[in-house]
């Protein structure tokens, strides 16, 4: 009986291994190429593992022109967009989850539609509007766009988190003499903190990865570019230096990979669906 079940499970294990390999191989290949000496990268027969591990490519990538600057730009734009979205979304989510008002359903529908907004098709008008308002080549423009991209998702998720906190808790605080805002700040807010954290991390990834707007709205002012644009132009700068390119990719992908693994529980419960795609 036991042998039968393990024989019957063999195709299943095989399929599982194939799935794991297919998912991991590109990530694995990126990281190992980054650590390989150049002569092994440019060999006829690729090796699965580097024979000697080297940090040369990382040194090249980090030492390349403006890496620190672009890193700072990316962080600046991303963090300010996420914080802005969080503050705006918190108010809206509270109104949706806890209050009854006319137009509430319409507002929720608007948020859902905004979440599916075809940003790829808005590049042209946003480019023209930005140009007309003299906002081209400036980082606050990107902050505003990323704020709007992450806002709907943030509202939807925060609304869910707020709804899990029993309103009776705040009411008790109000009976004890807290103001309504005070009750929210002292009672509900601490309970919300983990949700806020997870939500902002997903917003962070979306903004961190965004390429199209960073590419088309920052044109002349090279010092205001962000990391995704830097990475896409990396090959043009370094030509066939694939080791350095892969090291740059690894450095760029690392925060996203780390955050996702950290939040795996949320990811597998389907909560990130709208956050990182689309």
């Amino acid at each position, binding site marked *: 009986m036991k042998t039968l079940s393990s024989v019957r499970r063999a195709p299943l294990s095989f399929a*599982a291994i194939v799935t794991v390999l297919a*998912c*991991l191989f590109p*990530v694995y*290949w*990126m990281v190992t*190429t980054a650590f390989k000496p150049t002569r092994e*990268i440019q060999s006829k027969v690729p090796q699965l593992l580097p024979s000697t591990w080297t940090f040369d490519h990382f040194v090249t990538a980090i030492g390349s022109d403006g890496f620190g600057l672009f890193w700072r730009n990316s962080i600046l734009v991303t963090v300010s967009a996420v914080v802005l979205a969080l503050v*705006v979304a918190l*108010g*809206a989510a509270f*109104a949706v*989850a806890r*209050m*009854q008002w006319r137009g509430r359903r319409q507002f929720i529908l608007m948020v*859902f*539609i905004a*979440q599916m*907004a*075809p940003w*790829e*098709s*808005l*590049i*042209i*008008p946003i*480019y*023209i*509007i930005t140009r007309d308002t003299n906002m081209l080549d400036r980082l606050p423009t990107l902050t505003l766009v990323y704020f*709007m991209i992450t*806002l709907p998702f943030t509202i*939807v998720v925060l609304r*869910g988190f707020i*709804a899990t906190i029993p*309103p009776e808790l705040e009411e008790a605080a109000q*009976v004890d003499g807290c103001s309504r805002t005070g009750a929210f700040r002292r009672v509900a807010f601490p309970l919300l903190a983990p949700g806020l954290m997870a939500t902002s991390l997903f917003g962070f*990834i979306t903004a*961190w*990865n965004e*390429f*199209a707007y960073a590419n088309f709205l920052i044109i002349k002012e090279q010092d205001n570019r962000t990391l*995704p644009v830097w*990475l896409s132009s990396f*090959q043009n700068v370094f030509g066939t230096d*694939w080791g350095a390119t892969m090291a740059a*990719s690894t450095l*760029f992908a690392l925060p*996203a*990979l780390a*955050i*996702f*693994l950290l939040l795996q529980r949320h990811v*597998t419960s*389907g*909560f*990130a*669906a*709208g*956050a990182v*795609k689309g």
Partner: protein
Amino acid sequence: MTIVQKRTPVRAAVKPPGSTPTMTGSSPRRARLPRTRRNLWPYALIAPAVVGTAFLLVYPLVRAFVISLQDYKLAELINGNAEFVGLENYRTLFSDGRFWEVVARTFLFMACNVVLIMILSTLVAMMITRLKKFGRTMVLSSLVLAWAMPVIAAATVFQWMFNSEFGVVNWMLTSFGFEQFDRFPWFAHGAAAFVILILLVVWQSVPFAAITLYSALTTVPVELHESARLDGAGAWRLFRSVTFPIIRPIFMLVVCLEVIWTFKAFVQIWVITQGGPGDATTLLPVYAVQRALSSQQYDLGAAASIVTVLILSGVLVLYFRQMFRQEVQQ
């Protein structure tokens, strides 16, 4: 994105509208507040979100539509004073053979991707349900890692893997005996570049779809399977008559999302091929941007964008209908 949330604890506690006690005024303190002031609060709270959406989303959309009705080239971009020309841009676009080729290619790209994504992710999801704990954790973790890979990084790695000289894919294919792939220049070949882009999009999309379908599958009661098997149902029959009807609502939602996401695929293409070689990978969003920002025909680019938005809104309506139907059922 709300598709799966409904079954997570987060949403489980959402109270149906109307049962929220906060605004019915149970505390004496709030009951004394003047009525108007109390009713303005929610509007004050949503105002920033509404204003942001109006300026950063609705206005650009309206502006795109307006530009698509104007004669808007480089001169108008610099000097302003664009003239309205009615539907002239749409007429130009629709009488252009290249435009129709792009539309057909976009639909082909979308169809290939969605079919592959749905088949693969359903198989992966069903596989996960049958795995023991260790295997399940391994597969889920690797799916999450592939999902987390930033588009730009993934696009760069795929370029390296399909590199003609030192790429690992050419090496693998040659060592399996396909000699014709020795130094095969993937990105110089229209069809090959198209295939690579499909592979990339499928690789990036399967994790989300598989994980979502897997969490839908966990809601299928085991007893149903057992009784169907006792009645002599085979594996395919079991899937078709028992499993699929239960996960169907979620399945349809995922299909809608994938249609929308693959239809507007842009970044991967722009980074890897910029629409080339020739026109082989020019899809609608790429075509619009090329027209506008490379040829300075902002009016035609805007018109192509509006066409894309219209097609997508059709799918979006289907998506929302499915979503609300499901919400009603629960």
